[in-house]
């Protein structure tokens, strides 16, 4: 029986092993991130059947909770951990060929630290421990954004760092208040004591947490850093930031609102914030007629808004839809950024106008890009359709007029989303190069195998989940139940030994 703490320990240890091995052999160091994350993926999948029956609680230091820091490996934490390992594995395979700026070991070390932070956030059961992992994730992503040391990347990283640090301060202050009120940092222990506190105090703490994690989750109006950071970073970094880093902020908000605070009255605000984020993100993305990565970055903001909106619905179907959309967006946006990375590389510029007709030279990449774009818009044979359907039907089933109106706005925003994704796909296939080989990017050819494999695997996953949603729905159903049933969470942790 493998211990779930390996899920955090393996990437952490290999993050520090990568530069050391790099002293001896550069080629060996390149293989460390894929190997570590593949091991993580295998461990996660091995643990999954057991966790679906009963959550595993790992107490560190031999004390029983709440006196120790514990890992709480429930269906929600483990399914997100598997998602992080899978996406991280595919991106790290892509990065072995894509990242050429020396010293590449530093890139791999930071990348693994980012994965460590994300895995720690979703698995930990201690609120201060969550903050520490969150900081690991943030610092690693600041570093990765500035990895190329170019003009745009440095400036974007600087902005990201300033806003992220202010956000972290809010989180730390909230944790301090929480400790002052309850005298404990264990999330299950806090959850048992929450009913005894004054609602105003809890509201203030929750507001601090939402602001703090909202910076990383890029909810409006805290999203100023995201378009710059995601569009200026190397494409493999944009992929992991969009697929993993911003999702951890959403996870933390959901965990704190549901499990920690049980803030039913606050959910409508969360939905409102989500809808505003969705509308702002999609309209801003539509206005990006030039830079493909900036468009994808704004689209990420919109999708995050949709997920946050679904989390605020508060029914099991709504939370299920949110998690399903989270998984689909992670896969599809990761694919879009990875495909865009080589499209930019081959076309020689980030401009959409220079990519017209590229589908003739890079057919596989273009097909994969199209699959992911259609999935995000929510066309039926692809994964995004099912999750959007669950979110909209969950909103309608609540029967409250506010949620019905929000669902209508969300659907209208989807039309805008369709507008800009179809424009790109049309440009790839039907514009430029109509007079034969002389027009369009002439030297472009298909991406190399190390990049094509992750792209095609992701495209296959998007189609597979769309055609056969039972692949993930069973697990996500359990995960949604875990988030809504805080009583079970508390008993699982506090009666672990």
């Amino acid at each position, binding site marked *: 029986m493998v211990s779930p703490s390996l899920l955090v320990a393996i990437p952490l240890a290999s993050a520090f092993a990568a530069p050391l091995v790099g002293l001896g052999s550069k080629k060996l160091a390149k293989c460390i991130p894929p190997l570590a994350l593949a091991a993580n993926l295998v461990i996660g999948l091995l643990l999954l059947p057991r966790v679906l029956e009963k959550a595993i609680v790992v107490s560190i230091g031999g004390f029983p909770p709440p006196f120790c820091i514990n890992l709480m490996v429930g269906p929600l934490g483990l399914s997100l951990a598997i998602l992080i390992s899978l996406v991280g594995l595919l991106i790290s395979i892509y990065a072995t060929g894509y990242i050429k700026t020396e010293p590449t070991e530093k890139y791999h070390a930071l990348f693994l630290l980012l994965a460590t932070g994300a895995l720690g956030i979703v698995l930990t059961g201690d609120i201060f421990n969550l903050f520490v992992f969150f900081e690991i994730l943030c610092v690693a992503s600041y570093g990765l954004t500035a990895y190329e040391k170019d003009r745009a990347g440095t400036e974007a990283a600087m902005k990201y760092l300033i806003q992220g*640090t202010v956000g972290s*301060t809010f989180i730390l202050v909230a944790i*301090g208040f929480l400790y002052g009120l309850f005298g404990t940092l264990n999330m299950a222990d806090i959850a048992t004591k929450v009913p005894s506190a004054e609602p105003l105090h809890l509201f203030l703490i929750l507001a601090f947490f939402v602001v703090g994690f909202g910076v990383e989750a890029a909810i409006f109006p805290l999203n100023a850093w995201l378009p*710059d950071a995601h569009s200026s970073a190397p494409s493999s970094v944009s992929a992991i930031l969009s697929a993993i880093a911003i999702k951890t902020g959403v996870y933390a908000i959901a965990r704190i609102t549901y499990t920690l605070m049980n803030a039913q009255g606050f959910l409508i605000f969360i939905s409102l914030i989500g809808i505003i984020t969705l509308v702002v993100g999609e309209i801003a993305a539509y206005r990006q007629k030039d830079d493909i990565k900036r468009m994808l970055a704004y689209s990420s903001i919109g999708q995050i808004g949709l997920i946050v909106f679904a989390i605020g619905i508060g029914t099991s179907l709504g939370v299920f839809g949110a998690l399903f959309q989270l998984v689909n967006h992670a896969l599809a946006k990761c694919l879009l950024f990875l495909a865009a990375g080589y499209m930019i590389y081959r076309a020689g510029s980030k401009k959409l106008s220079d990519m017209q007709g590229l589908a003739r030279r890079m057919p596989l990449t273009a097909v994969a890009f199209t699959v992911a774009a259609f999935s995000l818009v929510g066309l039926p044979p692809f994964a995004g359709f099912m999750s959007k359907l669950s979110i909209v039907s969950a909103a309608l089933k609540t029967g409250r007029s506010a949620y019905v109106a929000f669902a209508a706005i969300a659907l209208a925003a989807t039309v805008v989303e369709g507008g800009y994704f179809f424009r790109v796909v049309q440009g790839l296939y039907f514009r430029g190069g109509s007079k034969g080989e002389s027009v369009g990017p002439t030297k472009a050819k298909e991406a190399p195998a190390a990049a094509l494999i992750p792209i095609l695997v992701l495209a296959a996953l998007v189609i597979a989940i769309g055609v056969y949603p039972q692949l993930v729905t069973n697990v996500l159903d359990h995960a949604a139940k875990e988030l809504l049933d805080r009583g079970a969470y508390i008993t699982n942790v506090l009666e672990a030994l």
Partner: protein
Amino acid sequence: MQQVANYMYYAGGGGLILIGLYMVMAKTNLVKIILGLSFLDTGTHVLLVAIGYVRGRTAPIFSEGMAETTPVVDPVPQAMVLTAIVIGVGVLGLALALAIQVYRHYGTLDVRNIRGLKW
């Protein structure tokens, strides 16, 4: 007067945080903004220590010749602050390194002139 003494540390911590927020939002020099981040960090640390402080008690370090019943303050916030200091130093170091890079690219630290990307 007793009231003032009770809330002095909270007010100090909160005040430092407000000064830091003002510096981050209002200053135009990148180094001053980074100093503001440092103020934010310090204010949070003071606030955390104040939460765990109990008047008239000593540091939670047991050494030889010290009775085990000596009243001490809560050690958990202090452990948190130690962790937070380490994180803060790391972030500040990275911020200053990035500021040097920004200066190399733009030749200025005035954020009004650093506009390669849309703010």
